[in-house]
């Protein structure tokens, strides 16, 4: 691959991710509206919100760490996008691999923790403490799932994993071969996206949106952008691991949107768990299902 194509892919992949992510946010809000029998926001609403937030006159910074935290939160996901192969573009996916990706996906939470720490708002600190606890909770099943998939396909290279699945057709998909791991993965996905019942760190009515409590203007805008990336990353990763990646863009997007729709639909049907309940649930059921799946895979 020539250096020009590589550079172009590195620019294009996050851009595509952002645009797809905007539509995912729209889908999230539309699903909520449909379940509550409302009309829901107009198509461009996520974009309006972001442009408005960046166009605010007052931009309150709480110091250097606050600025850098937001950059880390968005930048971590931008880096993750270049490691996620999409149809026609591999970026640096075959050099990075699954382990790097899992590592990079933790950076946003840590960046947010740094940034929010400087805001010195007790609600923010509680929110971050909960966010990191939640990460601890969902990362255990997540790592089991990633390990199982890598073991089954014999590689941690996402490009190879997708190629193997596509060679076998639907029967070769990870979800067909490892249904238990796929189910555990869904739990981890729900926790990763921070949707109800695992919405412990946003909790608007309880700790006033936790990490976002002191964010205004472009800082909140940055977090809105981060949300787009987050939905996209989680969806594409699941599709790459279990649903055979994308043969072409049409099927790829269909699969990704279908996967992301699951946690969103579930979210609007549940209230919120407490932190300890979330950990107990996460370390019990998905871990048990995941370990069982792992046993089948390694057998």
């Amino acid at each position, binding site marked *: 691959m020539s250096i020009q194509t590589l550079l172009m892919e590195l620019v294009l992949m996050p851009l595509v991710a952002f645009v797809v992510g905007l539509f995912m946010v729209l889908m999230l*809000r539309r699903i909520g*509206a449909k379940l*509550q*029998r*409302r*009309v*829901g*926001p*107009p198509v*461009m*609403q996520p*974009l*309006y*919100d972001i*442009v*408005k937030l960046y*166009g*605010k*006159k*007052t*931009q*309150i910074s709480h110091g250097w760490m606050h600025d850098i935290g937001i950059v880390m939160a968005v930048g971590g996901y931008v880096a993750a996008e270049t490691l996620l192969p999409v149809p026609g573009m591999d970026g640096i996916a075959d050099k990075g691999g699954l382990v790097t990706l899992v590592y990079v996906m933790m950076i946003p939470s840590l960046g947010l923790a740094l940034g929010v720490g400087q805001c*010195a708002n*007790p609600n923010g600190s509680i929110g971050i403490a909960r966010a990191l606890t939640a990460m601890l909770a969902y990362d255990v099943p997540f790592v089991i799932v990633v390990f199982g998939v890598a073991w089954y396909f014999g590689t941690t290279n996402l490009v190879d994993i997708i190629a193997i699945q596509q060679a076998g057709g639907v029967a070769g998909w990870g979800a067909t071969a490892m249904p238990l791991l796929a189910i555990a993965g869904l739990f981890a996905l729900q926790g990763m996206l921070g949707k109800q019942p695992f919405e412990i760190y946003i909790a*608007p*009515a309880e700790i*006033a*949106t936790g990490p*976002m*409590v*002191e*964010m*205004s*203007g472009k800082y*909140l805008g940055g977090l809105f952008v981060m949300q787009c990336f987050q939905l996209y990353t989680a969806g594409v990763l699941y599709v790459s691991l279990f649903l055979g990646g994308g043969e072409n863009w049409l099927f790829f997007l269909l699969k990704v949107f279908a996967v992301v729709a699951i946690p969103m639909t579930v979210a609007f049907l549940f209230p919120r768990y407490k932190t300890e309940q979330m950990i107990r649930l996460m370390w019990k059921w998905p871990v048990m299902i995941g370990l069982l799946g792992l046993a089948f895979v390694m057998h």
Partner: protein
Amino acid sequence: MKEIDIPIEASVDRNRTNPLARVFDELVRFCRSRSMFMLHYCTGCGAIELPPAMTSRFDMERLGIQPMVTPRQADILLITGYVSIKTLKRVILTYEQMGSPKYVIGICSCTVNGGMYWQSYATAKQLDQYLPVDLYIAGCMPRPEAVLEGMRKLMDRIRSGEADGWKDYYRRYDWYLGNQQHLFGDDWQTPADVIGEASHYDLAGPGTEGEHTRLLQQCQKPLEPQQTFFQIGGSLEVKGESHE
């Protein structure tokens, strides 16, 4: 307090060299009007008409209006009904924490002229003496249709650039502060440095400073680190300091 008329000069437009500046301004104004985050802070009985306006029946979200929980994130401050003097202090504190451009909507007759609490000793009668109100929605209480109609009006005014109450607060701060002092006493102060903000936004005018801001500066106490106490097993311990 008598209302004094202060001439308001049009803000001098900075010399903008970018040919796309106008297009850009238009876009930002459009997005501002289509995406309004309103603060969940309900003062009086008029608030009861907001849940129906937000939920399935009238669905504010289709206009891009969303509730937000902290003043930092919000664009609109809804004053839904009478404000008692104690509440008004909190409302002003909240307003000053919000990021510009910010808009205030007074819902209910009580915010317009005191409504049925006209004779009460404990309520502020006219909201626009203390805060720059961009829009009033009259009624006791206005129905959700009226609330939505008002929101649409505000959208139009934001889009055309008319809704600039927040600038008025900076330009005539002395007058607003005077009314606030009249109600709360001479030692009234908020953590926000409004005069500094006014000069930051180039909005400081002849009405920004005056006798009332001088009084404020005389009475101003410096902000002190706030001490938090946790009661652990009967003994009172100082656990930490948080800085404003």
